[in-house]
């Protein structure tokens, strides 16, 4: 009994040292395996949402490109004036999607630093969190509950209506969003936004027949909603594809961690067994030599 209790204490001190205890490794292994399951299922969900978003985007592209045609063909330029800049930053409420939100946040920060007389309309919570700390004064409006369900034209119309009702005046404007290129890449682009005055003073406007301010007003309002809708669709597709890639990478990393941890676990297990054997054998050998 004396020899046994003496044998227990060294074993305890060896197990407490470092993270090498079997229990701790197996707890960590279980949690990483759970994480891998979660990220894999998130990847599946994003893949399904991405397929749907891409299909809707394909149908919305001619609409969105058509909506921009007038401004190109009429050669509308930004208004000369000091009414400031309006940026509509399109993002969403949900994270874990790679660089989608941070790239938009970065560009808005640079723009505000370059031109402090800027108002930002934020669509989605994530960019709001990025801008809240330093540029809370420049935030004009925040739209939440974005990204859970695919955007419909009614949503864009609602946002456009709020922007118009709030009476924000601007000389320059742009919509910042992530244009979808391929499954693995997107590009943060800006779409120019022109105020009613800018359209009225366009160089090629006299070519257009029978226009009065009513028509121009209705046209710019509808076109704001259309452009917003198009940018929301593009952004949603980029976000889902980016989330798919991010979750895929996370699963791969978790898989690597699991491999390493399993190695460590097996080695530790074998070390524990070897140590027990050594103690038993050396104990038995000590008894034999004593005899």
């Amino acid at each position, binding site marked *: 009994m004396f020899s046994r209790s003496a044998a227990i204490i060294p074993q305890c001190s060896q197990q407490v040292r470092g993270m090498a205890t079997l229990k701790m490794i197996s707890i960590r292994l279980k949690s990483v395996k759970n994480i891998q399951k979660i990220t894999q299922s998130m990847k599946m969900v994003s893949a399904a949402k991405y397929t749907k978003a891409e299909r*809707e985007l394909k*149908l*919305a*592209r*001619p*609409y969105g*490109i*058509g*909506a921009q*045609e*007038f401004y190109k*063909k*009429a050669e509308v330029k930004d208004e000369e004036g000091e009414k400031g800049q309006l940026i509509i930053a399109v993002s969403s409420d949900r994270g874990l999607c790679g660089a989608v939100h941070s790239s938009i946040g970065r560009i808005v920060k640079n723009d505000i630093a370059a031109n402090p007389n800027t108002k930002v309309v934020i669509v989605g919570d994530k960019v709001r969190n990025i801008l809240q700390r330093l540029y809370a004064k420049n935030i004009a409006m925040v739209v939440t509950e974005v990204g859970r369900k695919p955007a*419909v*034209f009614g949503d864009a119309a609602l946002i456009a209506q709020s922007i118009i009702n709030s009476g924000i005046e601007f000389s320059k404007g742009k919509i910042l969003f992530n244009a979808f290129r391929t499954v693995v890449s997107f590009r943060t682009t800006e779409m120019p936004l022109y105020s009613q005055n800018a359209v009225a003073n366009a160089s*090629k406007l006299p*070519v*257009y*027949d*029978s*226009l009065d301010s009513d*028509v*121009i007003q*209705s*046209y710019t309002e*509808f*076109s704001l909603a*259309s452009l917003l*809708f198009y940018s929301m669709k593009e952004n949603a597709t980029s976000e889902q594809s980016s989330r798919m890639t991010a979750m895929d990478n996370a699963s791969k990393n978790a898989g690597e961690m699991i491999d390493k941890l399993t190695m460590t676990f097996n080695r530790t297990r074998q070390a524990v067994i070897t140590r027990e054997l050594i103690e038993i054998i050396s104990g038995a050998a000590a008894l034999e030599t004593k005899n």
Partner: protein
Amino acid sequence: MALTRSALRLFSGRFTQACQVRGYADAPSMSLTFAAPSQVLYNNISVKQVDVPSFSGSFGILPAHVPTLAVLKPGVVTVFENDGSTKKFFVSSGTVTINEDSTVQLLAEEAVPVDTLDISAARELLAQSQSQLASASSDVAKAEAEISIEVSEALVKACE
């Protein structure tokens, strides 16, 4: 044909130059993009004529139409394609842009082929909106009910 050619001479030199490049084709054509947020009906397709209902009156767009912008009224858009066929679509609202180079962008909020419309459902909608107008209290509700009536009347007219 002669009419369009004389109309052409009134336009700027650049436009006639573009037409001269296309001189070998039979007539200047116009490229129509007719889309709704969730569907594409025509994407840069060359057509002969498009009739659109707008707040400033219904008008037909032929190639070399004067550039203009218009806001669409609920009604029927008729597209006359190059092969002679005609297609009708009901649009709820939207805008139409005719550019200098004869490209037309018809952006409708909702567009459906007329033969998918159900006349009994349209009449029901009309009755509903009329009762809505009668029971409307605020200005906004009245305006919404009036819009609803306008759309349903146009729907019923399109079905007939």
